[in-house]
């Protein structure tokens, strides 16, 4: 009986999860390949200076993991980089453009720190995932005989992100990728609430991570051949 209940619940969850949908639109502005030798590293940073949103730290970690997936690209973690360069990459002081970065790198102490870390590219990620629509309701009640929830609710999330690659050697922008991911999530409650959540942020991370990898992996493939 217990097995039957588990199987029924699993089947219900699987069939409901099939109802979630995520759409990913990707856009890459140029098709150049970037050189990155095995001793050089990349740092991925999130934009945090806007008042109404900030790029999620876990999204930045996720992109770092995608880039490092097969150990071909070495990524310096965001937190480590920001601490090593403190206070020059705080929301108040971080360069918003290449002109400002060039000015920063004119300072030997900062340039030396970049060199010590063998940094070749800086990737800025700007964007966030927001709930854009919500519908339905779930209500719960507790009484002397027990409690439970009943209802149905759905919500839509949209994640919009843009990645800009700065070449720290030439101090020029060398790539730009945009990703928009949308997904609908549901929650069905019949005594117990069962949420079926669309992984919008994960999908956006996959999209942007794969696009960014193609900038670097093209040259690695050439080297290997």
């Amino acid at each position: 009986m217990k097995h039957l209940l588990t199987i029924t619940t699993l089947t219900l969850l699987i069939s409901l999860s099939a109802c979630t949908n995520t759409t990913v639109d990707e856009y890459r502005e140029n098709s150049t390949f970037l050189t990155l030798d095995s001793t050089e590293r990349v740092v991925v940073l999130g934009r945090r200076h806007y008042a109404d949103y900030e790029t999620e730290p876990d999204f930045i970690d996720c992109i770092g993991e995608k880039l490092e997936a097969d150990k071909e690209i070495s990524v310096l973690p965001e937190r480590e980089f920001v601490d090593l360069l403190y206070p020059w990459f705080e929301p108040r002081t971080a360069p918003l453009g290449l002109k400002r970065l060039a000015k920063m790198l004119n300072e030997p102490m900062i340039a030396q720190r970049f060199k010590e870390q063998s940094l070749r590219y800086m990737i800025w990620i700007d964007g966030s995932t927001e709930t854009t629509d919500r519908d339905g309701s779930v209500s719960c009640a507790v009484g002397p005989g027990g409690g439970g929830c009943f209802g149905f609710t759905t919500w839509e999330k949209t994640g919009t992100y843009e990645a800009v690659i700065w070449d720290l050697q030439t101090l020029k922008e060398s790539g730009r990728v945009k990703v928009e991911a949308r997904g609908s999530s549901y929650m069905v409650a019949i005594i117990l609430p069962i949420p079926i959540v669309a992984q919008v942020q994960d999908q956006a991370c996959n999209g942007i991570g794969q696009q960014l990898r193609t900038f670097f992996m093209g040259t690695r493939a050439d080297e290997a051949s």
Partner: protein
Amino acid sequence: MDTRHLMACSLVLVSLLVSACATRVEVDGKFPAALTHKLPLRSVVVFNEAFASHRFESQVGPEVSVSVGQVQVELFTGLADNLFQYSSTTTQMPSNPEADLILVPNVDDVQISMPNESQLKVFEVWIKYNLQVFKPTGEPIADWIMTAYGKTPTRFLKSNTQALQQASMVAMRDAGAHFITGFARVPEIQQWLRQRSTNTPQRKGSAPL
């Protein structure tokens, strides 16, 4: 159960319920060393009692208490170590110390904004510092009003306490960034440094960014 026990139990229960609604944060954390040129100055930083034990208590709405005293003592001790050639700390205004300047940080104001008040999905912390700089003789050099700001989006964190702790730490780091990048740019301090450099040979100051 007699009435006395019942009353005690009720009191405990009520106080537990009340404390469950309050948000109390003892901000703590570590700050990285600042990457900056040291100014050729010896400083004494005075952490008075009000600064070292500063606690923000909300006057309206739900009870919120944020203690920033200890963490800001750690922050300013580290900042002074990083920015000045030599730095020491004390709890009372010294008279004629062997130093080039005396720095007295004060908290003028702390403001906190929670999502239930602002209708925004962020926890925000503002801190307004008044950094007083004196000559060793006690003569004032500058009164620098320095603001710091930190925010944390609600969805990143699990509780109000955690969110306020993080927003306060972001505000502290911002204060550090403002202090390091702005100290030598405060007009009165700039003028004082210029006057000093005419008397003593000039050495490289903080990064001119």
